[in-house]
């Protein structure tokens, strides 16, 4: 058995680089996606849907980077991705605030229920109901206060918020506090990704050259062969490293 010293393992990297070159060729020369997007918009496709589909690969690539290289472990990949898109619509501050409100509402209610024994699945049902009610009230309050942005929120990201809260609350109930960190990271990652996606220069570039999103596939694969330490690992294991360096 060989304990290697390289940070980038070789065999898969070749496939990733091949895909990278292929994507660049497609993006520069053939440009299939540009044609597709144009055709879609001409035929009356909802621009917001097209926007989401174009931004999603970039969002996922950033999330993979934050996970593999930086070390921010989130509650899955879909949650931060769809939350980021929701934050794009309703605003990052509003979104994080909403998540916080949901936690503050749901956690004590579930703690109360947990004093008695019910099936775990009924707990999930209660959480989803609480989330729906809280979101209705929060949207109404937001509209009253003059912040119409919450009205912009779409169903799927809100459903994702419900899922995130449900998982977090279940983890607390089952006494798995380590999931709290994952929840916080999920919010942080969603906020970071949303800030990047909101950049107008980036959006214009993507809409002008939609084929660029093909690059996210080789990017993800390349990161998938990164065997080095993550930034958070450097922090976490610094004492071990200090001892080893002596």
């Amino acid at each position, binding site marked *: 058995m060989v304990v290697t010293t390289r940070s980038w393992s070789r065999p898969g990297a070749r496939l990733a680089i091949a895909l990278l070159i292929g994507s660049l060729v497609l993006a520069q020369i053939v440009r299939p996606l540009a044609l597709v997007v144009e055709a879609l918009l001409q035929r009356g496709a909802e621009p917001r849907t097209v926007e989401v589909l174009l931004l999603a690969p970039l969002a996922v690539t950033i999330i993979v980077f934050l996970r593999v290289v930086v070390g921010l472990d989130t509650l899955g990949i879909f949650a931060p991705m769809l939350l980021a898109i929701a934050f794009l619509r309703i605003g990052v501050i509003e979104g994080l605030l909403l998540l916080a409100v949901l936690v503050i509402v749901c956690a004590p209610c579930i703690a109360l229920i947990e004093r008695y024994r019910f099936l775990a699945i009924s707990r999930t049902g209660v959480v989803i109901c609480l989330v729906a009610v809280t979101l209705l009230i929060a949207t109404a309050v937001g509209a009253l206060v003059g912040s119409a942005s919450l009205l912009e929120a779409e169903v799927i990201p809100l459903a994702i918020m419900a899922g995130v809260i449900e998982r977090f609350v279940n983890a607390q109930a*089952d*006494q*798995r506090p380590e999931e709290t960190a994952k929840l916080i990271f999920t919010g942080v990652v969603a906020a970071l990704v949303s800030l990047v996606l909101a950049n107008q220069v980036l959006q214009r570039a993507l809409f002008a050259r939609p084929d660029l999103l093909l690059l996210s596939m080789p990017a993800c694969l390349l990161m998938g062969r990164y065997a080095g330490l993550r930034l958070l690992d450097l922090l976490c*294991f610094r004492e071990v490293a200090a*001892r080893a*360096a002596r």
Partner: protein
Amino acid sequence: MRLASALRDGFGAVLGINRRNLEFIEPLNPRRLLQLAASKVRTKELLSAHGLPVAPTLAVVRDRIALRAFDWDLPDAFALKPGGGWRGGGIIVVDGRAAGGWRSLDGEHLPRADLTLHVVDILDGAFSLIYGPDEALFEPRLRSDRALARFAPYGLPDVRVLVCAGVAALAMLRLPTRESHGKANLHQGGVAVGVDLDRGITVHAVHRRRASSAHPDSGLGLLGVELPRWDEVRDLAERAATVSGLDYVGVDVVIDDELGLLVLELNGRPGLDIQLANLMGLRSVLRDRFARH
């Protein structure tokens, strides 16, 4: 550059999660065997078929029909576990009988209806990694060997030995605390104590990822302690790892007061905190070990 080489030597000794997954778990642990190790029931069957000591099984409830037929003929103290559970989730330890049912170690009153609900949760996969159907396992309540129980008066301590290609690489003693509700799980507040592999003596202790020198509940010193029957523990872990077919595996061993050494479970994706407990990097350990072999 002295700083650069110090950084490289220092952090080069640490095994991070990316390398663990890419260069150890993926090539060394076949998926089929990982699934076997994830099932406590199948693991126990495999190990005992090879003559290795495991915790006795009182009963296994595999589905709702079996649950309906279950006679609940159990001793006064027992443990109810999800067969596919991970990180100690979903385990209820029952301490004795109480009106209409039992009393848990935490002091919670558990009438039979409540325990039945918990079994249903287990069967529905509430505690299994994949949220898929699972089986419920009843085991007798284990009591720790007296030497170890001194340190952790609450709960069942265990020894996690990380075995690579059949040879022990690092080991740590995991002590439950009141904070961790009697679970040895480090994330929930258990204490991890690194153990010198040759001498079986504790060398370093960590609680909540910070260095510690005494157990938070008993106040007893954690360093320089000699573990009972250490050679047997290490040997058992290595044999269990070999039997499992996994070449990178964490073996959890307990020393029961009556039953002696038992393999509690196998972990095909063992965590990296064992490096914190020993203040030693796995990558350098494995490099040295395999340079020799």
